[in-house]
């Protein structure tokens, strides 16, 4: 189901990533109603408070908004917001780890550049 709780990332952050995925793949479109806290808790078998923590984060980042009494909705610029967040994370966490591996495995950068160009 796209969420593997055995990995080292926290459950609430994995749920955030899952919501990112729903929005980036247009499974949830801007203006759509997001799944309720209870629906997600049941779906992923997690404590509703954990889902609430993910939704609080998504609200803070203006990816979803809470319409009182109705539920959560995907914001109009959710896709741009997610891309900029993911880019920041990619540059700050994934790229340094990638560079570390290049050095560790003695891989020439040119080899990677060629791979990217040919894709």
């Amino acid at each position: 189901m796209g969420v593997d709780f055995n990995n080292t990332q926290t459950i609430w952050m994995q749920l955030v990533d899952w919501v990112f995925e729903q929005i980036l793949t247009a499974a949830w479109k801007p203006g759509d109603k997001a799944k309720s806290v209870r629906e997600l808790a049941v779906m992923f078998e997690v404590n509703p408070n954990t889902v609430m923590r993910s939704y609080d984060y998504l609200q803070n980042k203006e990816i979803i908004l809470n319409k009182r009494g109705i539920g959560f909705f995907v914001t109009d610029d959710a896709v741009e917001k997610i891309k900029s967040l993911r880019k920041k994370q990619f540059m700050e966490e994934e790229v340094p780890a990638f560079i570390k591996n290049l050095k560790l495995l003695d891989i020439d950068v040119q080899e990677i550049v060629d791979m990217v160009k040919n894709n």
Partner: protein
Amino acid sequence: MVQLENIQFGYVKSRPLFKDLSLTLEPGHIYGLLGKNGAGKTTLLKIMSGLRFPDGGTVTILKESAPLRKAEGLQNLYFLQEEMYVPHLKVDDFVKAYAPFYPNFNHEQFAEYMHELELDQETGYMDKLSHGQKKKVLIAFALATNTKILIMDEPTNGLDIPSKSAFRKLMASAADESRLVIISTHQVRDLHSLIDMVAILDNGHMLLNASTYEITEKLLFDVENTKSSEGKVFYTEETPRGNYQVKENVNHIDSSLDLEMLFNAAIINKNEIANLFK
């Protein structure tokens, strides 16, 4: 919602099980009660439910003293024991006999929960069912009582793999702000995503009672110093992925709580862990 203050208790006077145990449990959470064999988890649950009376101290449930066993309190508390008592009755007759004790019992919910747990309400006598089937009927019943306090002692023992998943879904859907759920378990892998409060019972008192949020704020769960090499190490274990450590979270890094590692860290460094969460 449940408050234990300075509880003393022993089955044998010369060997007290609880010397000075205090614990407060709030609604809106699912507590995981952890402790070694013989630590007294089941006894503690019985004291909360008014089934055992403490030698000293006070137990309050829903603002009433538990040992008084007032009806207003008991109709809002359900205790699913590990050693289940199942009478020689068919499921329907069992519900007819026991549901009236719980004013908020919901028959439609019961039917739905039975269905979710793949149980047939038309089964024969309950005492003839397998251990796992009995347990599932009582889980469905327990949830359908809609009591404010729901206590479960090792609820996943005897459940098959699909039933464990169904159980977690039912619990996730039943949890709400007004309800207190306490689950005692050794099967932490079955329930780690479900509980949001961890209570560890050790050597006659509560070693820890904290939210999973607070725990990951104060402790870092790390492999091979990937997240941080700083902070006092409380527990180390060799794993195939590398050296697993539980350490003080000095740099405020978010990590994934591992209940087994937390338990081991707490048991080994009792005082340090207790002080960290004071």
